């Protein structure tokens, strides 16, 4: 017995470890038993209360991570908000386009403006429709607000239009109130200009300017813009009129291409061309 006690004392570290390991395994085996559960429940309540009491202490690392996550979410939501706002604007624009009232006989086809380019002083727009949709060179481009421009070139699936802010585009117009005719053009800046309007004719700021019947490209009475000011040309009998465009080419994203009645236009063009040629010939004869 004494030898056994001496042996235990000699190897006490191992004996104690064996006892503790055995006890640990016993505890592990019994940790799920019903006898232990009240103790676990009590400790859970106590620890929960202590943790709750200590929850006011901030964790800078967790706050930093949470801030980072919230920042990411904020960026995501800002992006979604921006998309929603854009969709809302697009929706309103499309609703207006749906309400566009056209004269009987006109055919229009909707198009998206997929690109805008500026070459020298020629502002061009690329439309999402082309020859395959019936678009031809010279067709007017409009929105619900008014005239936008004219088709300049076409391909199978796309077309390019020159907008009103284009030095090469000239449109026959008239004022809707007093029916004064003129040619509108862009010479730079934010406004269009109608030159050579006799001073005697009645034009005032706020007058609506629409397309004239004299144009071979544009149907009549399409709004072009509003007169903003009238200026006398120096040493001249004429005035020039500044017009704010009704549809700003740089701000629109959707438009319509007016599919003209080709037969009547061609007939008119041919007739006007024939008369013009005859007049030129008679002038030459008179000159001789």
């Amino acid at each position, binding site marked *: 017995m004494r030898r056994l006690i001496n042996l235990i004392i000699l190897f006490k570290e191992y004996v104690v470890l064996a006892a503790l*390991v055995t006890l*640990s395994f016993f505890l592990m085996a*019994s940790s799920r038993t019903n006898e232990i559960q009240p103790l676990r429940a009590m400790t859970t309540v106590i*620890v929960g209360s202590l*943790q709750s009491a*200590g*929850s006011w202490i901030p*964790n800078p*690392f967790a706050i930093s991570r949470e801030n980072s996550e919230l920042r990411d979410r904020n960026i995501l939501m800002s992006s979604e908000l921006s998309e929603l706002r854009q969709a809302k604007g697009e929706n309103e624009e499309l609703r207006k386009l749906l309400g566009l009232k056209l004269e009987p006989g006109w055919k229009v086809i909707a198009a998206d403006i997929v690109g805008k380019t500026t070459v020298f002083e020629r502002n061009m727009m690329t439309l999402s429709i082309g020859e395959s949709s019936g678009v031809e060179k010279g067709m007017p481009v409009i929105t619900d607000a008014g005239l936008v421009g004219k088709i300049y070139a076409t391909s199978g699936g796309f077309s390019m239009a020159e907008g009103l802010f284009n030095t090469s585009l000239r449109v026959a117009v008239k004022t809707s109130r007093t029916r004064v005719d003129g040619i509108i053009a862009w010479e730079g800046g934010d406004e269009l200009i109608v030159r050579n309007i006799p001073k005697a004719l009645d034009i005032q700021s706020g007058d609506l300017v629409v397309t004239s019947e004299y144009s071979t490209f544009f149907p009549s009475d399409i709004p072009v813009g509003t007169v903003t000011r009238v200026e006398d040309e120096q040493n001249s009998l004429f005035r020039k009129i500044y017009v704010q465009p009704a549809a700003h080419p740089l701000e629109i994203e959707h438009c319509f291409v007016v599919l003209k009645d080709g037969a009547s236009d061609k007939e008119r063009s041919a007739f006007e061309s024939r008369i013009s040629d005859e007049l030129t010939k008679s002038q030459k004869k008179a000159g001789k």
Partner: protein
Amino acid sequence: MPYLIEGAIAILAVVLQVVLSNAISILGAVPDLGLIYLVWTVIRRGQLAGEIVGFCIGLLLDILSSGSLGSHSLSFAIVGFLLGYFYNEEETEQRIRNWPFLLFVAVGAFLNGIIYYMLFKLASGVGVVDYFLGQAGLAAIYTTIIAVIPMLWSSRRPLY
């Protein structure tokens, strides 16, 4: 009396670890204050005290953390026993007040992780590398860094 104070410190360390776990965690890893106290005890009192204190601290941690009863007590008892092999009565103060204390803590944390992994994680199919590259490794590093505090504290005052 010294034993009572040491017992109170041990309980305080484990309670702080459990109660402040949310406030002091980094990426989910919490420093093992109980292990730091265990290393302190092993360096000062040797293998037998280490395994007994380890068992008691582990059991307290099991009770307070609502974990499997006996799991931490087993691993801490084994850690106390294994670290006890490096006990040297003549170098107690030097070890506690200098970098060997941090080395003991790091080895203890690693051993604790190994034992815990073999007992509870091996069967679940978690890879040992993944385990140590994850929270276990982070917790070991965090525990070692926190152990600098008692090391510096003990270097400014007499141990006994």
